[in-house]
């Protein structure tokens, strides 16, 4: 069982929206920390609540629409009950809340985001985001102990 779970998510066919996926894939390729598991997926799903209930820390990597394109943001994630919930609209906050409600525990959680510029149809990152991607990976990796990783890709 991993100690840390990294969830890189987004839609790679919506240009910069896929930057979280690309960062997680890069971390998989390089092979980061011992005891770290990486999930690569298009969107957060309720089933992830069970997975995150087993780890001590979860790190969400996503694109953001807030800020200056290429800017990296970092926030502590707290569980938050949504007003309404449907599987299509899970956020790290609601997923954490779901985890706590169902399993009685939730891990420490952080979200690292990179502000995108273009979210239109397309499979390429915009230039500013492409330049910032290595820094995103560096920030995420810097949070983890070095070693081996086990990765899974959920598209």
């Amino acid at each position: 069982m991993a100690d840390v779970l990294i969830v890189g998510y987004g839609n790679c066919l919506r240009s910069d929206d896929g930057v979280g996926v690309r960062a997680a894939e890069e971390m998989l390729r390089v092979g980061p920390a011992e005891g770290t598991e990486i999930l690569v997926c298009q969107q957060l799903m309720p089933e992830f609540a069970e997975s995150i209930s087993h780890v001590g820390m979860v790190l969400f990597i996503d694109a953001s629409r807030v800020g200056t394109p290429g800017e990296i943001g970092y926030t502590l994630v707290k569980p938050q009950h949504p007003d309404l919930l449907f599987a299509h609209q899970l956020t790290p906050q609601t997923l954490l809340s779901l985890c706590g409600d169902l399993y009685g525990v939730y891990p420490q959680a952080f979200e690292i985001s990179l502000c995108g510029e273009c979210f239109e149809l397309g499979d390429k990152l915009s230039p500013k985001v492409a330049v910032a991607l290595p820094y995103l990976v560096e920030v995420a990796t810097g949070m983890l102990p070095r070693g081996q990783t086990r990765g899974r890709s959920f598209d």
Partner: protein
Amino acid sequence: MKRIIIDPVTRIEGHAKVTIKLDDNGRVASTEFHVTQVRGFEKFTEGRPFYEMPGITSRICGICPISHQLASSKACDAIMAVNIPPAAKKLRELVHYAQIVQSHALSFFYLSSPDLLLGMDSDVASRNVLGVIAAHPEMARDGIELRKFGLQIIEGLGQGRVHPSWIVPGGVASPLLGPVRDRIFSDLPSAKAIADRTLRFFKNAIDNYKDEIEYFGSAPTMHAGLVDRKGNLQFYDGELRFRSPSGEIIENGIAAEDYANWIGEASLRDSYLKAPYFKPQGFPEGTYRVGPLARINVADQCGTPQADAEFAEFHQRFGSPAHSAFLYHYARLIEIVYALEKVELLLADPQILEKHVRATGGVNSLEGVGMIEAPRGTLIHHYKVNEEGGITWANLIVATGHNNLAIGRSIQQVSEHYIDGNKLQEGMLNRVSAVVRAYDPCLSCSTHAIGEIALRIRLVDANGELCDEVATP
């Protein structure tokens, strides 16, 4: 006359709107079920190479992409005129049953359980999956675990949960690995225990829903579904059977390539969703239903021990055929039991680990049809190609389409029984939505939908003026 508009209908996949017209006395005069979006896959795939179709059409739906890949690949197999390797067929079946489990779990636990566990008239603010989590966390955990089980099989085979590119024309892209089989095997007992527990819960609770069973789309219709030569339930292979409202077999042994001789498609004025009908009886008299309830009605037995016992109990309690759309939930749970039994049988078959899993070939036929039972019912992909293999024409008949006319009739029946236009209450309107949910329609699939999840109810008076509208997020 008044008009009630439910827009959007919630906890379904896709967009829909229901219009209920009331007479001067506030009683229901008529109802309409509108599906409000179009996607046009049949048209924009024209010109694409046929072998791209499984990948393109799987994007119709994020819930049952496997079904589209399977039906599409079977149509492509027919164009290539190949018999796929035995291991490939078994692997396709395995991933199909995994999808049946995860899709049925989504329908029952995520979408319908708020009505069943919290009550049709419970506070709308908490009548959602959050309310279920608060009141019945053990049931919510079961739902998550069961869905995860199905998704992990799909992931293990296809290297992707939602849109794997593993099912291909001629078979599958890669064989099953021993460790993956062993992992699925080890998770199976827990999944079966959840299925048993949930079915037991539902059977005990069903007496609380006598009114819904009586009035939720209980008007008799024909039923259609795939069966094998012995009359067993079939999901991947088999031939189409129609059973009359009174239970006689009307047509049997309809092969995929003959579907058009028996199924016609009518266009409706107020909906993008076509209305298939049984051709010999014409439109709209040829209304029939597909999906879990229809399959349980059409088959003579399931073909696995535990599901057969549940099948017998179901018909003992509710007759054969059973007509209430509320019983779709019950049938769905029986099918989960069946699918898990089939997963076990397939995994125990040594042939499933064979390495030869793909046949190759070019264009050997200019036309191909693939027909399977998707979670929501019979799914048909029909393609025509040119000699270079480019798609020249495509027709998709999706499960929810088959049920279009029946859903409309069920809305009418529920509205007539529950709606009093003089004192409109949310619980009444919820029952209208709930009967739609019982069918577990996937409108994204059936219109090939884009946009948000939604259903809407409109109240229209005798003069056609809009009096009230309920839009649920």
